[in-house]
């Protein structure tokens, strides 16, 4: 949760993505407590309602769950779920853009594949 908020998209989306990143990077482990609304408010100087909205996205997706009286926790299997979701988005978020720019530069499919393999 140490990334900076930017102006590029809604704060609550950034909050939920940062939490996902932390889970993917093993900064917050499954079955561990996630930052509370209050902690998020303090860390980012944001309105509590916005922080709540970011957390609720992850609750709806079955990534966080609430332990009454204790706080929000990471669901067992959450990391796998996030990876699945991100994989689905990977084509739209990365591959599509990559192909558009490649076409713009006149990079053919073979050349593109060579580039990708070269980086391994």
């Amino acid at each position, binding site marked *: *949760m*140490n*990334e*900076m908020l*930017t102006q590029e998209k809604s704060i609550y989306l950034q909050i939920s993505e940062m939490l996902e*990143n*932390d889970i993917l*990077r*093993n*900064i*917050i482990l499954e079955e561990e407590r996630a*930052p509370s609304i209050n*902690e998020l408010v303090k*860390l980012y100087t944001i309105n509590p309602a916005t922080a709540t909205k970011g957390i609720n996205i992850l609750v709806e997706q079955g990534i966080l769950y609430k332990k009454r009286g204790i706080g929000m926790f990471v669901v067992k299997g959450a990391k796998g779920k996030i990876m699945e979701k991100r994989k689905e988005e990977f084509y739209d978020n990365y591959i599509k853009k990559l192909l558009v720019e490649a076409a713009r530069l006149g990079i053919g499919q073979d050349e593109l594949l060579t580039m990708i393999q070269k980086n391994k």
Partner: protein
Amino acid sequence: MNNLVCKDIVKKYGKKEVLNNVNLTLEKGKIYGLIGRNGAGKTTLLSIISAQNPATSGTVTLDDQQVWENQKTLDKICFSRELNPVMGNGAAGLKIKEYLKIAAMYFPNWDNEMAINLVKEFELNVKDRIVKLSKGMMSMVTIIVAMASKAEYTFLDEPVSGLDVVMREYFYKLLLAEYTESGRTFVISTHIIEEAADVFEEVIIISDGKILLKENTQELISKAFRVSGKAEDVDAVTLGLRLHQVEITGRGKGVTVILEEGQKIRGGFDVSIQPLNLQNVFLAFCGKGEKG
């Protein structure tokens, strides 16, 4: 060389040292942003380089000519001070038109047409007394004096304080139009850093009476980053770099780095690297917990 040069400026008020050996060269034809925290010495510095306030020691020269008590160089310098309703020099009791009249006598290149035009643009009533003006309106008067002075070197002390967002935008446009047309040199102090960042060619950061840095704004921003991720990964990619604004939450860590010549953030780890804006850079140097 058409430069304004401060050499070893020290300013003490009693025992309190407000400026501590300031060396600064202002090149002709640039817009400088002067930023620093409350009490950092911004206003004192501007008042000394415009010879409105004597330095305890050190010299200010313009084209190698002493500025202090030298009418020839003073004619080229305008420091439009912030107005407030309880000023001791009597300006507060004046009407706007009287204040502008005095300014007109003071600055040999005074552009009266511009002053009249700006009064209209700002929708000010020249018959109002300074003491009765709102904070924003006082800022407008200082802006008018600065612009119409047509002085080669013009200093503005928090010109946008109290101005609404529409007027702030208007001011930046006005400033850029005047700058483009005349090539005058401007030094502008401000606390509203981010919206002015694109206007400043160079930024001067002052902290505890010292010049912390003076650098091209865009170059400065381009080498400042926020690195975050798992603590050991962040440590690995920033090994050997000077860290600012360190923040640790559980296994996570976030740090700000400002890369120096030849330095870089190492690769090979899954960390987020985000570019900073000028305000974040300022916080990295002068934020709470930073020694500067």
